[in-house]
């Protein structure tokens, strides 16, 4: 018996390590490049059929314009190269947006958090991407840049419009994620994140859920509910949000919301867990988060 030949990924023909945004965009301009930063997803996948690296590898880690956390005038910008550890260790950020900290804290392991970047978690487009969940709750805008005929072109895309399917985004091959931006939440903002798998660390979420709202006197306003691993992309559960908007949290509302959520998600059976179990987790996390929000 002969074993089937494994398809070898095409060889990488060129390497670039740009030192500025312009240089990086030039290196991406022909659409034949693959970016690498932390490598925590790409270096695992790069030899899998269908996920091969383009003919040019572009190491964007030394591009200063993609680094850093800025907090000013009621807005926060996270550069694409910001690592999960930097999110955790930034005091102002943790205080202003505990939701981000909560998600970064449940992200993989220390070594991975030291390398994995905000931009990478978006670009990898996993349906279970942990850090995308709080960004969805914050209505973050993803900043993209590209080089066209010697000119830098930029655009922003709301994060909920970025994902097109598992591993797929609307980001063009010549575009680079430069960062994400969102408004600092105001007073009375509750934000919570829940995630599980069979073990606490290094887990690809069976279900992840982010819940955020302004809570005043038990009444919910501006509700944002995001889930991972219950659909082909991370999603906002708009119908469930509508069922909660302006309402006071009580047992009847929790039941109504759980029903709405069940109708809105489409989890699959796979080797990590069944759709049945995922539905129950989603319901349990929603109930848990509503309970936390009600008790402040």
């Amino acid at each position: 018996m002969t074993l089937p030949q494994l398809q070898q990924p095409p060889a990488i023909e060129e390497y670039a390590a740009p030192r500025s945004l312009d240089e990086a965009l030039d290196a991406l301009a022909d659409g034949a490049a693959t970016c690498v930063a932390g490598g925590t997803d790409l270096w695992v996948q790069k030899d899998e059929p269908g996920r091969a690296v383009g003919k040019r590898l572009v190491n964007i880690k030394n591009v200063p314009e993609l680094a850093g956390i800025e907090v000013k005038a009621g807005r926060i910008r996270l550069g694409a190269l910001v690592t999960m550890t930097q999110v955790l260790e930034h005091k102002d950020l943790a205080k202003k947006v505990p939701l981000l900290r909560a998600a970064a804290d449940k992200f993989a392991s220390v070594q991975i958090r030291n390398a994995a970047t905000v931009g990478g978690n978006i670009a990898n487009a996993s349906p279970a991407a942990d850090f995308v969940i709080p960004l969805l709750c914050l209505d973050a805008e993803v900043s993209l840049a590209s080089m066209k005929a010697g000119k830098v072109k930029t655009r922003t895309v709301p994060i909920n419009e970025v994902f097109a399917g598992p591993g797929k985004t609307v980001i063009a091959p010549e575009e680079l994620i430069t960062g994400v931006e969102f408004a600092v939440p105001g007073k009375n903002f509750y934000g919570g994140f829940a995630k599980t798998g069979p073990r606490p660390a290094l887990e690809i979420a069976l279900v992840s859920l982010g819940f955020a709202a302004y809570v005043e006197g038990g009444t919910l306003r501006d509700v944002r509910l995001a889930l991972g691993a219950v659909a082909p992309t991370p999603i906002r559960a708009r119908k469930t949000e509508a069922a909660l908007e302006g309402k006071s949290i009580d047992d009847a509302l929790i039941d109504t919301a759980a029903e709405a959520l069940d109708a809105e998600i489409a989890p699959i059976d796979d080797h990590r867990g069944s759709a049945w179990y995922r539905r129950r987790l989603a319901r349990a996390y929603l109930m848990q988060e509503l309970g936390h929000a009600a008790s402040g």
Partner: protein
Amino acid sequence: MPLQVDVTFTLNGRTTRVGVPVGASALTILRERLDLAGAKLACGEGECGACTVIVDGQSLNSCLMPAVDLEGREVLTVEGLWTDAGIDPVQDAFIEHGAVQCGFCTPGMIMQIRYLLDRNPNMSEDEIRRGLEGNVCRCTGYKKIIDAVIAAGRTATA
């Protein structure tokens, strides 16, 4: 012949120049080009921590670090802990507490613990467990490893 790039970086205090294939990991280069076999290849996907090294002060899975990204960086591997002053207090504590069984996870464990203790020598047991969540010991000798971390932390603050 895969595309090669020359990288220059500081490895355990010494300037090192080496040619690396563009698709290679830092771990492969350390082990196969630079003959430093301390960091181990086990899972190859960042789950087990056996390949942990410290790069620019951050502990990383070297199996997931592109070798080309070594350029200009400062890398510390378990081999670099042995200085004229002797072995590292973490290594001493491992010996003292019998924290080594088969030894395969040990270099990665020690590098991750070095990183954790440099940031906080007074970790609680919970903090130690969380700090080591990316390091797997298949002999499951965690109790003695944690005892060693507590002891090494005490040495550091004594």
